[in-house]
Structures are given as C-alpha cells and as structure tokens.
C-alpha cells in the first residue's frame, strides 16, 4: 500500500528535472482528470465517453471569471469543482437511466451537445479560437506565473486529490460502487438505490474533472475548444486503460505515459499516435489491467526467478 505512494512522491520530485515544467504540470493535471474518470470506469464499471463535458465547462466558466472578474486561484478552483459537479449532475441524471451501449452513447452525445454550444457561442468561448488571456493570479505573494511555482502548486493539489480519492474508494461508497460493478441486481436487492449511487459517482468524477479543467486553463492561459471535445474525453479513457483501470494508481501511470508521449515524441515524430495505438492493442490483448498489471506480473516473475 505504501510502496506506490512513495513512487508517486518520487515522481513528483523528479519529473521537473526530466521534462519541461509545463509538461510535468500537465501530467499531474491529466492525472487528476483520470482519477475522476476511474471512479466511474474502474470502480463503478461505467464507461463515460463524455468527461470533457465537465472538464471543459469548468475551464470556460472559471476562465471567464478569472479573465473578466479577477477572481483568486482558490475561488477559481472552487468554481471549477462546482461547475464540474453540476454539469455532471445534469449529464449523469440523463445517462444513468440507461445501461450498456446506450449509456456510453448518451455520454458521448451530450458531450457533443456541449461541444457545439461552446463552438457556436463565440462571444463568450471564442469558438474555434478558444478563450485566451486567462491569468494565473498570485497568492500570498507567490507569483504563479513562474513555471516551477505553478508546478509545485499543481503537484500539491494532485497529491491532495489522490488522497481524497483514496479516502473515497476505501469508504463504504467505494465498496458500494464496486458492488454495483460486480452485480447490479444484487446491489439493488440489498437496499442500494443503484441509479442514485451511479449519479453520485458521476458528480464526484465531474468535480475532479472540473478541478483539473481549471488548472489546465491556468497552465496554458487559454481554454482551447478541444478541451470540451470528444477526442479529449477519449484520451482520458485511453490513458486510464493503458495505466490500468483496476487500480487507484492506474490513471496516474496512464497520464504519465500518455502526456509524455504526446508532448515529447510528437515533436520528433508526427505519427506518434501510432505508438499509442500499438500500446493500446498490447494492453487490450495481453494486459487487461494495464501497466499496473504488467508491472505486478513482471515483479512476480522476477521474484520467482531469483
């Protein structure tokens, strides 16, 4: 239990020495986004292809308030959590009524709906050009425009998110969500209002997404239209599956692999998504538990060999 946490802490310290600060920051932001998705995907067994809805909505609303009303960092993050949770409440309410493929398609369709609102509403969102000019307000005399200062803030908030998610998955709620994943009919018969619990998972996941969305907007100083697009929703699913949806740490590893590949290798080779595709095929065919499972298998194998 302690070992993965030590590895995460080590990664937080070492990462800015290895990659550019902006990439390192983006990795932990995407990891927060993945943590929220994995409560749905890994723990509740719900594949949501619409997480960017909450990520993007929060980024737009908080970005707008940061830009025109000069709110502080923590107010912006609070707004992000609120908008993420609220949009997830609306979307989730409509989606949890359906199961299986219909559920997935609904999350996707509603994501498209939000996307086209952002696309059309150019006076606020900037449409295709995105919403630029989002500041990173200073706090307690610390200038977060310094890349390292912002990295420290984001990684601290990431560790806080990880801690919060760990508490949630180890709480009765975590167990109930897993029970729903394992056997929905029995969970209902035991006395759990299954749609209500799925909705709760949605809202919590949406809050994490919104939190990540605001950090993302402040990182790049812009909310690009892609931040609310379905490709972005797909990316977080992709990253989480590569990392391993069966574990709390899976989305973190997935985010490391995905963002590092997309930001570093893409510079060297424009066809980099091919690598990602190959990695994904390998995961689906041989390591359904993602990198986490691959690692534990190698670990066991090496112990047996020695």
């Amino acid at each position: 239990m302690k070992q993965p946490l030590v590895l995460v802490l080590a990664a937080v310290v070492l990462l800015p020495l290895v990659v550019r600060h902006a990439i390192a920051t983006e990795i932990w932001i995407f990891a927060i986004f993945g943590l929220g998705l994995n409560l749905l995907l890994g723990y509740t067994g719900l594949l949501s292809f619409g997480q960017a809805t909450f990520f993007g909505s929060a980024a737009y609303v908080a970005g707008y308030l940061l830009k025109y009303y000069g709110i502080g960092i923590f107010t912006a993050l609070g707004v992000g959590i609120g908008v993420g949770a609220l949009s997830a409440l609306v979307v989730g309410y409509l989606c949890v009524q359906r199961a299986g493929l219909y559920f997935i398609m609904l999350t996707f369709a509603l994501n498209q709906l939000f996307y086209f609102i952002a696309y059309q509403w150019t006076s606020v969102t900037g449409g295709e050009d995105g919403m630029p000019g989002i500041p990173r307000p200073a706090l307690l005399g610390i200038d977060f425009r310094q890349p390292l200062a912002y990295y420290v803030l984001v990684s601290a908030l990431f560790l806080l998110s990880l801690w919060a998610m760990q508490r949630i998955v180890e709480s009765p709620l975590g167990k109930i969500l897993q029970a729903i994943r394992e056997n929905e009919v029995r969970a209902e018969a035991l006395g759990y209002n299954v749609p209500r619990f799925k909705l709760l998972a949605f809202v919590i996941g949406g809050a994490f997404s919104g939190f990540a969305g605001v950090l993302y907007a402040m990182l790049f100083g812009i909310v690009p239209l892609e931040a609310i697009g379905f490709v972005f929703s797909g990316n977080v699913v992709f990253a989480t599956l590569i990392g391993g949806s069966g574990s709390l740490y899976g989305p973190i590893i997935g985010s490391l692999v995905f963002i590092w590949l997309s930001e570093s290798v893409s510079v060297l080779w424009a066809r980099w998504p091919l690598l990602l595709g190959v990695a994904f095929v390998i995961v689906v065919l041989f390591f359904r538990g993602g990198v986490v499972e691959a690692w534990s298998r190698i670990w066991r194998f090496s112990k047996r060999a020695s």
Partner: protein
Amino acid sequence: MALLEARELSKSFGALTAVNAVNLRIEPGTLHSIIGPNGAGKTTLFNLLTGQFAPSAGRILFDGRDITGTRAHRIAHLGLARSFQRTNVFPAFTLLDNVWVAAFACSRSWRGLLWRRTESYAGVSAQARQALNDVGLIAKQSELAREISHGEQRQLELAIALAAAPRVLLLDEPAAGLSPEETRRMVALVRALKGRYTIVLIEHKMDIIMSVSDRISVMHFGSLIAEGTPAEIQRNPEVRRAYLGGMAA
C-alpha cells in the same frame, strides 16, 4: 396478523400469466414453503414480493403496510431479504466484503459514507462476521467469492441475505445443485434459522419441505391450488394429481 400478505396478486408477461390471483399469508415466526413444478411461478412470486417486478394486479402488504409497487431497494430497508435460485454474489469480493455490503445496506446510519474507512464501522463488521459464522464460512472470510466451491457459494448466498438482519427471509431453492452431503448441511442450516426468522422457502426436494415446513402452499400454473400443514398437503388428492403425479400414487 400476517407479517407478509399477498392479495389477489397477479403478474402477466404478454399473454402468459406467470402468477394468477395469488392469496398468501405468512404468519410471523413460521417457516412457510412454496412448492410446485418447474414454471409454476414460484420465483416470479418472489420477484413480486421483493419488488424486482411490479405486479400487474393485486396488492402486497408487509406488517399491515401496503408495499405494492415499492422498489426493490426500499423493500430491502423494510426488512425483506432474499436469496437467489441462481447464485448471485459479488465474485471479485472476499466473502467478508460480500456480507459487509449487505450488512451496511440496512445499517442504521450511513454517516461517513464518503470518507470513513470501512473497518471503522465496528457494528456492521460484527454483523457481517456473524452472518458468515451462521453459515459456517467464517474460516474462509478472506477468500474470493469466485474461488470457493459451488456448495460454499450457496452458503454465501444465504449469508448475504442473513447479513441484512431481515424480518422476513425469502429463500429461493437454497439447495439447488447441491450434493446429498451439502444438501444435508443446508437443511440443518435452514432448520437452525427457523424460529429466529420468518422464512418463506421455495424448494423442489420434497423430503426437505416435509421435514422443515410449518405450512406449505402449492403452486400450479401460476395459481395456488392448496395450502396446509405438511400432513394435509401429503393427503391432498389435488396436489397429488398436479404435483406428485403418478409417482406418489
């Protein structure tokens, strides 16, 4: 007064009437069995009583209260727990976690739902262990449900129903698919539960039914055709014709 009562309860699936105007009264503290050939509508009746299906007509009363149309998760909170004919557990969970979620569902308070550690609910954990102990699985509490034998899964199925500390226990063929040795153990278990709970039992094995039941209702093509003590049922000519067929003649 009956603890659980069905009045003119019916359920149709299209042209098929699976349960047809059934009247049933379960007295508190008794073990009431429901027998009948395959397809007689016994499991459908259970699904109606526990809210899995909404009835097409008729009413269900629990403790004098009309619970017709109440959803399954609410009925569980009123104190009706069921086991399933086909094993219906949480395969990737340990045995203890299987009963823990059942015990938590009907525990008095869900305070700390989002942040308290599951181990810190001492009362729930104790109740969960008690249920495993009652069915004789406490030694295997850390094993995964998918890795134990079929017989043990049937015992776990029962433990999950017990863990909710219900007022009425509906058992749907607890001995389904068990070996003679396992069946004997299951019968002893049901007998031990008798008196502690009000039990409604669906079972095919006649020797079990006759030895444990206080009352028996016989279903045939969706209708109740007889009700009485085991001795009365054995003597009933209509039951012999419908259910026991030529064998008992």
